[in-house]
């Protein structure tokens, strides 16, 4: 989407036929390289000469996608195109300028969600005449519960059978990997009256032996369909396909199609434009959650673990499996534990899924996913905890409705959804949490602990939402939409950036994160604390990658900077941790660290600078296996690990060095 965004502006430029100095970005979708091209003024053949535009990168991506099941091929931009192609007019509407992007998607987003206006079925023809069209209200409805071989012609014939003659178009939701229909589609007709007829009669028509389900074009319905498509015995792509990895990967991509489309359908263009190839990383983790409330735990449960393991995202898949065993059985049985949460979240908040299952057994779990976030996590770990804990103390914090969704797949999302409290309260951990921490097994405190905040926030929640509503002056649903979008943006950006950094593509990773940050900042809900947390996480990741990239490229000169940087981070986190003085937390850290350790080993292979700065610490700490942990977060980790290994004495020692 990054690529798309710039391409958008480039095309806007062309359309205006002006000569500008333009920096455009091309991204090698597989190599994730950023290519900056300056388009100089005064060139008569400005249209294409000298411009390196990845015009057809989507083709490349899709060629990749065709056989890259477990990989990163799925492209949010492609999904955006998918969503926007369903609204032809809006596709052009994205082109004009990047400035419009945040605004336009809302229009686009609301068009299917809001009830149909009276725009005559002229969308079809007029839309195409113009390149940049404002999205018009469309008369749309979702139709699900179709067989995968139900075609557009079948739908059309069914429509004429029931007396609808102003069919405009139908767009099926497909598995990106193989193009198979997921069994649901968005149908556009020319008039409100036709919609009524459809709603009345279509459900009674059988198509290929199945009764279609007609629903209004809501995100929730989409999520339901998505879930349905996953649980079908038939859908080859995801279930049982290609072994664990391939199947999970496929499913991830499939999920991504539905999931992100759901919440992101309306806002697709914005995010997609921004993120294109990047976003999808995080989405697989989101996929099962996208199934939203109201769906039975079993589907989630099944999908959670495999999804997680197969997550193509950089960090996601790697840490989760090893994590769970140490965490104990609790975390895995994410679904049974949260009886309360599932009922609480209003249907319109599929975004917040992570909280619910995370919370009960989440104490241990939160730090876990947190650490996945590489650069950012250690200092930010606090935030994952506050969700559960902070409700009582931080009254104003919007309580993310704990989703009924499978907890196991947390990844970055857990973090995103996690920290509703602002950055300010984050450092002040709820003492209740820590009191319980050391006493019992990880699962012990959380359940007892969390039930209470559960109930309290329950009452708090409505006020929270209202609070936000009034402050933001946007509807709750829209707010959550945007919030969810931002969360997805952030999560995907981070996983993509992490992957890029792992493969050495620091520039593109940094660019991804920068764009994610700016996107979230531009969004309507930017002032919200959750967004601020997202932004902070992104920034942390960004710093991490920057530091790493600098370390890789320049020799000693940077190491000092990094050390300084790290020192500050370390101090920050250390001060926080000192406040907490919490052993149990470290216990929790241990697991994520193990994960991230292995992950970091991959990253660190090239970074001798890391080891040099590690040695910096080692001077103080000796006898630590820091050689392996040469990373900023590792520093954090090291300290924690060290602490847990040799509790008090080392803690003192640990605290002292950074002081001076």
């Amino acid at each position, binding site marked *: 989407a990054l690529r*798309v965004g710039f*391409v*958008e502006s*480039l*095309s806007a430029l*062309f*359309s205006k036929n002006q000569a500008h100095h333009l920096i455009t970005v*091309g991204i*090698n*979708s*597989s*190599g994730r*390289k950023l*290519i900056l*091209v300056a388009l100089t003024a005064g060139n008569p*053949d400005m*249209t*294409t*000469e000298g*411009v*390196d*535009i*990845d*015009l*057809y*990168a*989507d*083709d*490349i*991506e*899709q*060629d*990749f*996608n*065709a*056989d890259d099941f477990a990989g990163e091929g799925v*492209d949010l*931009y*492609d999904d955006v*195109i*998918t969503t926007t*192609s369903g609204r*032809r007019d809006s*596709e*052009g509407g994205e*082109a004009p300028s990047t400035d419009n992007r945040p605004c336009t998607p809302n229009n686009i987003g609301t068009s299917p969600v809001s009830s149909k206006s009276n725009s005559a079925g002229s969308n079809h023809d007029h839309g*195409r005449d113009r*390149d940049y069209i404002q999205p018009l209200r469309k008369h749309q409805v979702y139709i699900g519960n*179709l067989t*995968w*071989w*139900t075609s*557009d012609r079948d739908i059309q014939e069914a429509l004429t059978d029931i007396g609808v003659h102003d069919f405009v178009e139908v767009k*099926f939701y*497909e598995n*990106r990997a*193989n*193009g*198979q*229909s997921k069994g649901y589609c968005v149908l556009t007709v020319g008039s409100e009256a036709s919609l009524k007829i459809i709603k009345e009669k279509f459900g009674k028509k059988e198509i290929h032996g199945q009764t279609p389900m007609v629903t209004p074009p809501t995100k929730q319905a989409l999520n339901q369909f998505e879930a349905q498509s996953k649980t079908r015995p038939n859908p080859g792509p995801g279930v049982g396909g290609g072994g664990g990895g391939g199947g999970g990967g496929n499913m991830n991509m499939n999920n991504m199609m539905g999931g992100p489309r759901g919440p992101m359908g309306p806002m697709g263009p914005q995010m997609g434009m921004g993120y294109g190839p990047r976003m999808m990383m995080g989405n697989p983790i989101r996929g099962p959650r996208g199934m939203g409330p109201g769906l039975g735990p079993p589907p989630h449960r099944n999908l959670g673990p495999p999804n997680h393991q197969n997550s193509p995202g950089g960090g996601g898949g790697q840490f989760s499996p090893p994590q769970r065993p140490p965490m104990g059985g609790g975390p895995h049985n994410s679904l049974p534990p949260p009886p309360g949460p599932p009922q609480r979240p209003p249907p319109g908040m599929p975004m917040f899924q992570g909280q619910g299952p995370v919370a009960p057994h989440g104490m241990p779990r939160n730090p876990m996913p947190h650490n996945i976030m590489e650069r950012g996590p250690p200092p930010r770990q606090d935030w994952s905890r506050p969700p559960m804990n902070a409700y009582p103390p931080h009254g104003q914090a919007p309580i993310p409705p704990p989703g009924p969704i499978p907890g196991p797949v947390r990844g970055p999302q857990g973090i995103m959804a996690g920290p509703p409290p602002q950055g300010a309260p984050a450092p002040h951990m709820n003492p209740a949490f820590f009191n319980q921490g050391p006493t019992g097994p990880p699962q012990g405190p959380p359940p007892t602990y969390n039930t209470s905040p559960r109930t309290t926030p329950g009452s708090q929640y409505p006020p929270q939402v209202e609070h936000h509503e009034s402050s933001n002056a946007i509807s709750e649903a829209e707010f959550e939409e945007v919030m969810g979008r931002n969360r997805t943006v952030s999560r995907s950006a981070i996983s993509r950036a992490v992957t890029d950094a792992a493969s050495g593509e620091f520039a593109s990773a940094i660019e991804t994160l920068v764009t994610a940050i700016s996107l979230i900042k531009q969004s309507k809900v930017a002032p919200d604390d959750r967004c601020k947390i997202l932004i902070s996480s992104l920034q942390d990741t960004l710093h991490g990658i920057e530091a790493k990239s600098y370390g890789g490229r320049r020799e000693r000169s940077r190491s000092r900077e990094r050390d300084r940087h790290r020192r500050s981070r370390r101090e920050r986190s250390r001060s926080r941790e000192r406040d907490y003085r919490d052993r149990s937390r470290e216990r929790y850290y241990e697991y994520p660290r193990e994960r991230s350790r292995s992950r970091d080993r991959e990253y660190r292979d090239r970074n001798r600078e890391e080891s040099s700065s590690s040695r910096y610490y080692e001077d103080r700490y000796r006898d630590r296996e820091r050689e392996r942990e040469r990373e900023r977060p590792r520093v954090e980790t090291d300290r924690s690990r060290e602490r847990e290994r040799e509790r008090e004495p080392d803690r003192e020692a640990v605290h002292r060095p950074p002081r001076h």
Partner: protein
Amino acid sequence: MAGIVRRTGWPSGVAPPQSQNKSPGKNDMTPNSLNLNRSIHLYPLTNYTFGTKEPLYEKDPSVPARFQRMRDEFDKMGMRRSVEGILLVHEHGLPHVLLLQLGTTFFKLPGGELAAGEDEIDGLKRLMTETLGRQDGVAQEWVVEDTIGNWWRPNFEPPQYPYVPPHITKPKEHKKLFLVQLQEKALFAVPKNYKLLCAGSTSSTFEKTGLRTDYSLINLHCWTHSVDFEDLVSPKCFNFPVG
């Protein structure tokens, strides 16, 4: 005719001379026997000369514009038909595909869109001449005898699949890949805004082009036939397992 062996193109009317004769006495020209053991001749990259010519610009300045044009044309002319050619050479015995690189990230095969009603092979030859054809007035012969693959685009979106998904009755684009057998020596002219690459199946460039799937189709199709590498120090004839 008998005795004349064309070096380029499948031998027509003649039993394949270098191929392994399954049954020596059998000279009937049934299509099966002709196809089963055909050899394709590949020549070293160094046999070919590449000049330059004026830039050849993409029709669409941006991705959305591209899909917009696709939509417009779909309404007027129906499904877009595209053709692309796979030009094979070898480098040290490893078959390579010639690719065009536009900018730094975009790779494509020579080819393009067919005009309404245009024949596929003729259209491909026209497009290849536009793209790579020499400019010195000498006619360029393209030998196109094989279809390697088909890709269909179900929606006005990037994904393409080697089949039409069942729920799609009207794919928006159909792309056909052809194997273009090159002469022993040839001159090509590459537009200035392109770079011509030669990517072998093991090269990372090839990975990045996203043509892996196409290449795998080449594998399926071409390598099932044996390959002769010309001008190798020790001439080899490769027999690749089917599929």
